[in-house]
């Protein structure tokens, strides 16, 4: 997994690519928890380059969301590939996370 941090008109965007699994999710957790500590909001996560996610990756995002909720932070997901979206839907997390097709859609929400 590769993590790239970008700034989109003042909004922090974490762009992920590759596989998010038990091996790589601690690095992702570190980045998300850093954002929680800094009370970043909104925070966008760009999934367009993600090829795989397992339960440890999902757990990391749930933990990140719960952390952000403590200060009213907004966590928005963009560009989730179809197969990964199916996993989010199965886990009923499509109703928990804010999910948008593009960064522009998320900016305009």
């Amino acid at each position, binding site marked *: 997994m590769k993590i790239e941090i970008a700034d989109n008109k003042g909004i922090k965007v974490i762009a992920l690519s590759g596989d998010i*699994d*038990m*091996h790589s999710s601690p690095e992702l957790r570190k980045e998300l928890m850093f954002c929680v500590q800094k009370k970043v909001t909104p925070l966008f996560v760009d999934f367009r380059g993600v090829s*795989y996610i*397992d339960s*440890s990756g999902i757990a990391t995002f749930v933990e990140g969301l*719960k952390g952000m909720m403590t200060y009213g932070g907004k966590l928005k997901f963009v560009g989730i590939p179809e197969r990964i979206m199916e996993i989010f839907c199965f*886990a009923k997390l499509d109703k*928990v996370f804010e999910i948008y097709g593009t960064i522009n859609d998320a900016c305009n929400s």
Partner: protein
Amino acid sequence: MKESAVITIPSSPKYLSVIRSVTATMADIYGMAERGRDDVKLAVDEACSNVIKYAYRGDTGQKIVVKFFIAKAFEVVIEDNGIKARPESIQGRSLDDVRPGGLGVHFIRRTFDVFAFDQEKKKGNRLRLIRHRREEDEDRDRRQ
């Protein structure tokens, strides 16, 4: 004829990508549809992750043996020498209860028709996962 392949990996998360790759290849050889292949890849990854987390409690210096058998069904046997699982206590969290963890077992159970620990194994665990051929796999066969 039953065809088989065996892979042994260290009990370290960095080797899970190897397991996923081999699982996907075996599913392709079996003739599984793309959706099924992705599901078994995730399910076997989750089962091996559980071995690392629960059977070996994060000890990365142990071994996990994964055996694939291809015949009418797609069968995966995962063996370790760690702490014995208590099958009766293995259940995922309710999908309505949103919190970190507890999803892996759901991914395994939705993919495989059989999820059974071999109680004959004296030390460690032997998990047998069997996925019977499904209609979507037959569709793929007909298309080719």
